[in-house]
């Protein structure tokens, strides 16, 4: 049976600490910032954005939204534009996989992604002398000139699959496959699991009344769900959807 892996992120629990961002980078051998890197040119496959209700003073409220690749399940925009077939939706897992070996660096996918969840590798990956010994041996370092994004920690998935195969099981143990961001979240705001499995804790969370998806109106069926009981946070996501829809239709 094929899985449909995804995240449910409770925004009311997210404190914006950034543990997910750092853990993601450490797990996936994302290099530290190059001297000239900025928020626009940096590599942050898991990025936490701060948003507010737009008010000032005592009426101001803020929330933090972790944004990674949404792993769109329908008409995946990056897949349909890639001239190199460097992006695929894995049918067995539902993960939108970026293959840097095939990537030309044309950046069509970055233009097509409505979530700005893709990053271009502007510089050769570099670490201070000796620090390469601290890299994760299960993940290859990507070259300059390719696009990167969240692949849901494929090294962890492969490790779980190897473990299942060694034990003679066809299915992996869900406890063996948790992406670094979900594992690192100190408040448990990031839930990860199989959205197609009714017994998985993410299933009821994704179908709860306060769950929503960013730019849901585009119909790309993202596999990242968000939750919030704060009306202004939900309204923000819907307002952005309206803007995006307007932009697409001129």
């Amino acid at each position, binding site marked *: 049976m094929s899985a449909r892996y995804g995240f449910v992120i409770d925004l*009311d629990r997210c404190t914006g600490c950034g543990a997910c*961002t750092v853990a993601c980078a450490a797990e996936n051998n994302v290099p*530290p910032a190059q001297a000239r890197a900025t928020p626009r040119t940096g590599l942050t496959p898991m*990025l936490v954005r701060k948003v507010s209700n737009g008010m000032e003073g005592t009426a101001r409220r803020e929330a933090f939204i972790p944004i990674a690749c949404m792993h769109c399940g329908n008409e995946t925009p990056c897949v349909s534009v890639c001239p190199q077939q460097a992006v695929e939706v894995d049918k067995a897992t539902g993960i939108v996989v970026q293959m840097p070996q095939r990537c030309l660096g044309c950046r069509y996918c970055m233009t097509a992604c409505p979530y700005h969840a893709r990053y271009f590798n502007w510089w050769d990956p570099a670490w201070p*002398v000796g620090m*390469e010994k601290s890299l994760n*041996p299960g993940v290859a370092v990507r070259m300059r000139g390719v696009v990167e994004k969240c692949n849901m920690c494929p090294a962890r998935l492969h490790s779980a699959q190897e473990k299942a195969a060694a034990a003679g099981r066809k299915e992996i143990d869900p406890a063996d496959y948790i992406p670094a961001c979900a*594992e690192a979240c100190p408040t448990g705001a990031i839930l990860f699991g199989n959205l197609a499995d009714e017994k998985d804790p993410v299933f009821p969370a994704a179908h709860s009344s306060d769950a929503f998806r960013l730019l849901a109106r585009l119909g790309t069926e993202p596999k990242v769900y968000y939750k919030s009981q704060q009306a202004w946070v939900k309204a923000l996501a819907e307002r952005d959807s309206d803007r995006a829809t307007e932009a697409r239709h001129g």
Partner: protein
Amino acid sequence: MKVNRRDMLIGGAGALAGLVLTPVPWKLLSDVSIWTQNFPWIPQPAHGPVETKYSVCTLCEGGCGMRVRMAANYPVGVAGVGSHPLTRGALCPLAFAAHQLNWHPRRLREVRHAGRAASWTEAQAAFQKACGEGPIAIVDGRPGRAASSVFEAFTRKRRGSYQIVLSAESQALAPYANWSGVPVASLGFDLENARTVVSFGAPVLDGWGTPGRFTRLWSERAGGAADPQLRLIQIEPTLSRTAARAWQWVPVREGSEAALAAGVARVLWEERLVTSQGPLPQLPPAEAAAQTGLTPEAIRELAQRMVENRPAVVIAADGNPAIAALNVLLGAVGTPGGIVKKRKDVPSRVPADSVPGPLRAVLVDSTVPWEFAAPTDAEVFRFAAWDGGGNSAGWLLPAPVFLEELTDVPTPPTSARETYAVALNLAEPPREVRSAAQFLLQIDPTLPAVEKLIHARCEEIYRARQGTVYGEHPTAVAKLDSAQHFEEQLRQGAVWMGEPPGPGKLRCELKEWPMENRVAHAGSWATAWVPPVFPALATKLYQESNLREPPAGRQA
């Protein structure tokens, strides 16, 4: 047979078509793509046996449990440990890249004297000479360790003084120590039993105390719910990360926290919301409202909320006694869910900012924050793993870093229960580094070794037969068959936790209501981080995104 131009073209086209049907071009394409991913200047991870070790973070005094992934004997990944009794799997964001600190460009790799390279022999000779010429002091940033015992033993023998540096969290407990006579190290916040936490600017959801301890509690018992089991009320002038997630944010004018505490105390007393006897502040609620920028109704409402979901505890960002006095009035001192006294008595220590008399030399341990400047003209021997720059110490001595040194981890300052853990030397340190304890042991070999002291401490805990060891499964110490077994468990990453504090062992008496108006500066998000440098990947948080402010005075 004559080959004409037409045959040549047909043959060529046929060969091309045939080539496409062979694996050759696809193999070439594959090889080229792999080759372009493996240029010699692209860093390659170290390959070797992969194993998982359990340890405890020593980068601040929080003592969080860590799962360290090792490859080819190098640490390559860090994660939290779910079985840790305080942090339960949570870590601060910096910890996830902390294993990269061992290779930080600012790592100290040689002895330096007055800015020039020197040797350990010279440093040792200079320190021995200083010891012979006058009194010395040793400053420790993390008292209670085995290394601390070495420092104390050395200072006892050499007419020196042993001093400590208090963290902001420990300073917040100092008023209760003054009022009760119980040392700061014996006090703690019983957050696990609190139902309302009122924070006067303390970043309780952003690295305060043991990072992860309160965050986990808040996540389980509040987590953004409209009517949570645990209410977090954050009193702070700006909308900080903690304020943004608090059940209630009370924005007050900067520096008016003491006035608010006084106003709340008056309401608590006048409306008979508390039963405690004691002095009262003179400040009327109307005046408190004028100073804080709140309405008298808002202060009244805050007072009511403090008592409607008890036990409630007040946490100050620093040692402001005016705020601490609220806990005395609320009856939150010496009771579950408040300020409690730990089971074991700890001797009182001298804070490093009150150096007694002139000194010939000061030895500063690597656990002391880099910004610490000894308030003396004495010759300073500063142990540090990284050179944070701008330090005026005469001697800079390279110390082992995180995961390179065998050390024990005593109870974190804010914990209500004693804990004890052992952090192993998982990674090979560079040859040039020495810890302060090793340095002193070379000067005086009669001092006890750190390893022996850890062994003795384990035996002491085992003999008491109290508490629980949190390893893979929690096990009562009384059920372990030997002290050796107990120590083995700790060396494999388990944490010992003592019994809960007994009630009624702490009493604070106020002679008058303290009124101290001071600006509680909300420290930078990295204040609690002891190393003067950041892991390189911390740049993701402030350079490659706008999530946080760049940390002042620290380089990634």
